[in-house]
């Protein structure tokens, strides 16, 4: 009896996944009765709320990819270096101080980072190196999402590096390597699948990030890869439409589920790939 109740608690997770899939697919099917799948996937104009609506998802995808790319440009090198530093160089004390600090970054509500991107980073960029940057742009939120993603990469990549057995390091030391050579030519290659998994999972998080881009990247779908322009992402579009009065069952209502389905597909592919890579390094040692 108790076992059955507990099993039901466990099955809530299965139910949730199933419900997400069913709801998104069901509402999207309604959407695709109005819009052909081909126009949706290849159209470069996204104006579902206009009197003469157009439903091409590509502008939202270009916005999402641009922000994610900038974020990874920040988070991959910084996260990797921090991971190597924590795993191979830092003493016990430094690690005990830095890891909680990184956890704090990961814990900050993203809306706070949104405020920071719109009212601190964008003005800062405008005052210093990019005087022509518009108030809404993809660069500032991209950079901020990048910083917010550093802890993900740092902690996952560090886990992978620490899983590399000590005797491999000792072998390299015995051959006269110094710490840097051990870190770069022994630990990194040995941990590479785990480190790549960290990048992939971080990319999935950056793609799903909503509030920073909803606040600072602008609200209009814009088919561009130029980070200096304003453009909405998949997530920002969903948030923006949900804020307005949304008639249940209308095409606009269903369009957010279609956008959500695309978003879920993108993150799902990355998450599955990431977990596959992670499992590989757990198996290796």
């Amino acid at each position, binding site marked *: 009896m*108790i076992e059955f109740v*507990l*099993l*039901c*608690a*466990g*099955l*809530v*997770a*299965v139910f*949730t*996944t199933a*419900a*997400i899939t069913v*709801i*998104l697919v069901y*509402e999207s099917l309604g959407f695709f009765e109005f819009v052909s799948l081909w126009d949706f996937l290849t159209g470069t104009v996204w104006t579902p709320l206009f009197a003469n609506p157009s439903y091409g998802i590509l502008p939202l995808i270009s916005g999402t990819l641009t922000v994610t790319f900038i974020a990874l440009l920040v988070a991959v090198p*910084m996260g990797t*270096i*921090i991971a190597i*530093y*924590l795993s191979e*160089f830092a003493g016990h004390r430094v690690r005990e101080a*830095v890891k909680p*600090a990184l956890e*704090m*970054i990961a*814990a*900050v*509500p*993203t*809306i*706070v980072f949104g*405020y*920071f991107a719109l*009212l*601190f980073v964008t003005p800062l960029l405008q005052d210093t190196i990019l005087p022509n940057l518009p108030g809404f742009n993809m660069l500032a939120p991209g950079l901020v999402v990048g*910083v917010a993603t*550093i802890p993900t990469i740092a902690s996952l990549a560090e886990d992978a590096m620490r899983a590399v057995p000590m005797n491999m390091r000792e072998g390299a030391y015995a051959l006269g390597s*110094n710490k*840097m*050579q051990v*870190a770069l030519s022994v630990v990194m290659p040995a941990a590479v699948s785990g480190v790549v998994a960290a990048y992939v999972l971080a990319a*999935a*998080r950056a*793609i*799903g990030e*909503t*509030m920073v881009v909803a*606040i600072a990247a602008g609200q209009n779908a814009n088919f561009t890869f130029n980070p200096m322009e304003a453009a909405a992402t998949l*997530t920002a579009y*969903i*948030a923006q439409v*949900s804020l307005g009065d949304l008639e*249940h069952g209308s095409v606009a209502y269903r369009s957010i589920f279609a956008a*959500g389905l695309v*978003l*879920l597909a993108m*993150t*799902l592919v990355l998450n599955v790939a990431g977990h596959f890579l992670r499992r590989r390094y757990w198996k290796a040692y």
Partner: protein
Amino acid sequence: MTAVMQPAVERPDVQEMRRLVAAGKRNQLIFAMTGLACTIFAVLVLLAAFLDLLFDGLPRLSWEFMTNFPSRRATEAGILSAWVGSAMVMLVTMLAAVPIGVGAAVYLEEYAKKNWVTDLIEINVTNLAGVPSIVYGLLALGLFVYQFGFGESVLTAGLTLALLILPIVIVSSREALRAVPGHIREAAYAMGATRWQMISDHLLPYSRGGILTGIILGMAEAIGQTAPIITIGALTFIAFLPPAPITGEAPFVNFAWLWSEFTVLPIQMYNWVSRPDKAFQLNAAAAGVILLAMTLVMNGLAIYLRYQVRKKIKW
């Protein structure tokens, strides 16, 4: 003998080797410094975000700000409905996520056999942890708001966030349960305890610290969530409070608040930050200070608890 060997071995150039070793040491130092610099940079950005928020928001913080409803005039606006709404939503989230999360963890650690049902649950828990939070909002919009007819209510928001933090609660509870060594279980069984007695009298009390850490981390995650709450259609301008959960007359408990419309702190902040008027943006900063303080206190508590648990337990 040595005279014969000599020509075969090239004489090592001592100077050259010293130079190489010194260069290696220098590179190593530069690398370590880069690592430290990156770490410090990340922390500095975090600090800049905090300070920016504090400088903008602190002057707006006052007793009135906490006890006023939102208003069209920025200087009179407050976050009363927002923080009351947040508290109510958190209550629902906790009541839903804790029993389900801990229950699922106990099942997976203590009851589950190695079969496809167990694999299915485990895969889904891992997968759910990676689903973007806004997708949970879409799930709730389609399922709770329209299919179940819960409407845009406190109940919908609480259940949505409960599903969202379920993976966090399950994973950390499992870790806490796994940390209890097997001989404790065997000792309980040896005294004639049933499996459930062993779990409720021994496992759960001993792993309390770790489970609590996970719950606090989950709640800290939930309280800052904006996107899923926007998606289910929370209103941004609420100038009333949901009915009080506790009343003066019998039966003293009132469940009308579950069905009430509501707003939460991050939504209120989003509403203010997206207005062009600078005065409202300062309000947003002030709301952000409160929100940030709450998440940081909860996270600090969790980190401290985990540290205590790790230090104290010697099996």
